């Protein structure tokens, strides 16, 4: 699969490719999205409906995690280094999460109906194992994409199916804080 920026130049960005059309229960282990160096790591993650995400704070200062997305609104408060908060995601959809303290922190969570999803490799290829036979839709999504790329796929038992997808990224959209306001001008703090 290919990803290009709005100016047409190829971009080597993280992307998630997933199949929809059938449901599966979530896996046993919760997914983790860490807060490290004023970033969410990873900043793009796919989970299955009903799965939890843990948010550990690895920075020596407070972080917040909140979402105003219609799929899952929440506010985990502010918590210190070493603490972690947990949140469940009972409905499918896209959830954008931010930190109310640090405006540069943003991540996207794809809450998917099944576990058939994977990440794009650096060379642009991907493999999704275990897709049941049938005709489904395969999507690809990267942060900053205006919309996911989609193509139909027919899976036959014992055979590989190849789907080429192309995504176009835009600029990082400006977001508001949890009160619906613009962030105050950020002055980096020096820690001694």
């Amino acid at each position: 699969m290919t990803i290009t920026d709005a100016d047409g130049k190829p971009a080597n960005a993280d992307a998630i490719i997933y199949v929809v059309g059938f449901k599966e229960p979530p896996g046993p282990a919760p997914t983790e999205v860490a807060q490290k160096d004023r970033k969410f790591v990873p900043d793009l993650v796919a989970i299955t409906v009903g799965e939890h995400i843990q948010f550990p704070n690895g920075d020596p200062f407070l972080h917040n995690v909140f979402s105003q997305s219609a799929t899952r609104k929440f506010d985990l408060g502010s918590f210190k280094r070493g603490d972690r908060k947990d949140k469940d995601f009972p409905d499918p959809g896209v959830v954008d999460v931010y930190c109310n303290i640090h405006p540069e922190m943003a991540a996207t969570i794809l809450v998917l109906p099944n576990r058939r999803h994977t990440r794009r490799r650096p060379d642009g290829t991907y493999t999704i194992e275990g897709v049941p036979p049938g005709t489904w839709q395969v999507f690809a999504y990267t942060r900053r994409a205006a919309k996911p790329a989609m193509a139909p796929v027919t899976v036959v038992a014992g055979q590989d199916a190849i789907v080429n997808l192309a995504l176009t990224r835009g600029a990082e959209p400006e977001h508001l804080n949890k009160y619906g306001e613009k962030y105050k001008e950020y002055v980096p703090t020096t820690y001694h």
Partner: protein
Amino acid sequence: MVMAVPASAHAGRTFYGWLQDTQVMPERGAEIQTFISEENYQGPDTTPPSKVHNTTWWLAPAIGINDQLELALPVQFDWEHVDGTAPRTNFTSYGAQLKYRFVTADPVDAPDFVPAVRATIDRIVIGSRDHWVPQVDLIGSYQSGIVHAVINAGVAADVSPDDQHFEARTGAGVSIETIEDLRVGAEVFAELSLDSDTSGNWLAIGPNISWSHGRSWVSASYGIGLYQIRDAPKLNWGIAF
């Protein structure tokens, strides 16, 4: 004696005027919360000095200790006017209040019925020393779609070296979401003596309204007196940081 227990120190984020709600702030959330209330008494003896008008201004910083426990440190000022006498303004009390919500505050995961408890202690700084007003409230809220209902059952004590007085502070209300975050409803609230001094009893019923926007919220009710009070309006307001 009217006003045996100083005016009710009811506050915290709420859809209601006089009633406590089960809402709490997230961990390390911080708000300034305040209210202004009027209690315009009209006791059985309508000649002065039994008619007391009391205006209360209550102000508190409040923080979320964790996602279910909230702490506020209020101060309270009262302007009291007994008909036929000169009005008095007092710095009445300082204190602390803890509110604990027994279930998660996440609206997706929370059950329809939410129980909470609130405990307060106020030190009265007018009159004699060692004058305290502890209060405990049991709060239950129920959410069904756009309808929110709440019930309060509280007991307050007025404990000083000279006297003790106990009263129930109880009520119930309903709040319905209309457009955006604007809610309207009605509530009934009463302060009822649990001992022989019933002069401060009152009961009021009236409409309420609340609205939240961004970091601010406001709620109010206009209690129309049913017993020993003419009216009891109250305005609550808070802003988060």
